[in-house]
């Protein structure tokens, strides 16, 4: 094991080789995704696929880990900031920094062993989960919100979608009425309040879930997870909705036609 990973040797004698061979996808490199990229690099993950069409601007500087004032001035792509952060820790890392929507490079997304979803909105999340399920890829989604009713309130969640286990719809994280409501509000959302510390809590927990999935250090109770974050009381708690469906077979992605490329050509 390399010296830089010696303090995490409890994760397994060959965990550094395992992490170096794993490719993770990060969709959205803003407040949440930038933490994910940085911590994955420290962990020793060796292969990355970053997707984000956006560039760094001044309103992002309050929460994008690794971004500098010069990046905001230069309008550096967010994926380039993430690549720089990863390479500064591990110059040998293989990084695909794709400055476009993730839907435009399915081939790269499908080559990932696990994907982190750091997206806004239910529609994007639903699409990403379907794409991950089609390629049997675990998806770890994080998100937070600052509710604007006075007094302000911060909340968020980490939701894990493991192929073969309950999906976002099974556990009630994505519902048709939320998608409909989002569709009606399309184009009028504007910039929601976002802060660095709650994104950090959610991203760190998501990284812990990835590590437990790859190199478990303790007895695991369940793969699927729906963890709610109370940013006012500073607590993380398992959502009760998952306990109801945790043993049930997913009915939304169980058929053979839910897998693979519908337009396959050799």
């Amino acid at each position, binding site marked *: 094991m390399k010296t830089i990973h010696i303090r995490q040797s409890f994760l397994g004698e060959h965990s550094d080789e395992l992490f170096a061979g794993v490719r993770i996808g990060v969709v959205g490199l803003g407040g949440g995704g930038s933490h994910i990229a940085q911590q994955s690099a420290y962990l020793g993950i060796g292969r990355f696929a970053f997707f984000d069409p956006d560039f760094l601007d001044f309103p992002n500087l309050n929460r994008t880990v690794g971004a500098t004032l010069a990046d905001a001035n230069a309008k550096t792509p967010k994926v380039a900031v993430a690549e720089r952060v990863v390479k500064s820790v591990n110059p040998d890392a293989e990084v695909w920094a794709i400055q476009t929507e993730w839907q435009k490079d399915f081939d790269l997304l499908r080559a990932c062993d696990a994907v982190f979803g750091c997206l806004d909105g239910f529609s994007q999340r639903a699409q990403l989960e379907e794409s991950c399920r089609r390629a049997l890829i675990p998806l770890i989604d994080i998100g937070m919100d600052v509710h604007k009713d006075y007094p302000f309130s911060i909340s968020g969640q980490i939701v894990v979608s493991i192929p073969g*286990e309950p999906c976002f719809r099974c556990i009630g994280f994505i519902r048709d009425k939320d998608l409909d409501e989002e569709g009606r509000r399309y184009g009028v959302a504007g910039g929601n309040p976002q802060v660095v510390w709650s994104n950090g809590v959610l991203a760190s927990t998501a990284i812990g879930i990835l590590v*437990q999935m790859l190199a478990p250090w303790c007895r695991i109770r369940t793969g*699927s997870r729906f963890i709610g974050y109370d940013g006012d009381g500073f607590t993380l708690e398992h959502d009760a909705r998952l306990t109801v469906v945790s043993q049930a077979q997913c009915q939304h992605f169980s058929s053979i036609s839910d897998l693979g490329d519908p337009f396959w050509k050799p």
Partner: protein
Amino acid sequence: MNVHFKLTVALLDGIVADLRRPHPFAAERAGFIGCKVSRCRDGFLVLSNTYLSLSDDWYADDQRFGCVFNSHAMRAAMQFALTNDASMFHVHLHDHKGLPWFSRPDICESARYVPDFWNVKPKLPHGTLVLSANAAAGLCWYPEIKKPIRISRITAVGFPMRFLGGSF
């Protein structure tokens, strides 16, 4: 071309449990896995969904081999491929720990029957998989390439993930 074979942990456990059942006369059991395929950046993915267990009477009594299946087994697997537009992978178990590999008869026989799936699904890859107690290996026949390709990576997707073979 890299071939990444994926199945869920639940499907893997079900397959191993079935293959470990003793047979009245065959020394080992076999089955077929119905899969879909998808392109990816490095090559393609084989994505497993359905396991076809072979009935006891679909085995032929041939003591020269651990397991010989008859035409009923092949017909059922071909029908599944046709009905579901599926890629088919034969599977059997060498019940030891560590990376398994095919015996010489395994390779000779699979080279005969795996390409038969192209009679019903000529544009899809098909293949064969050998499992051990904690690892796996496989061969894949790709359309228009006569020699099989060694499967480069085999993953059981679940929590935790199980990396069964290949480049990790």
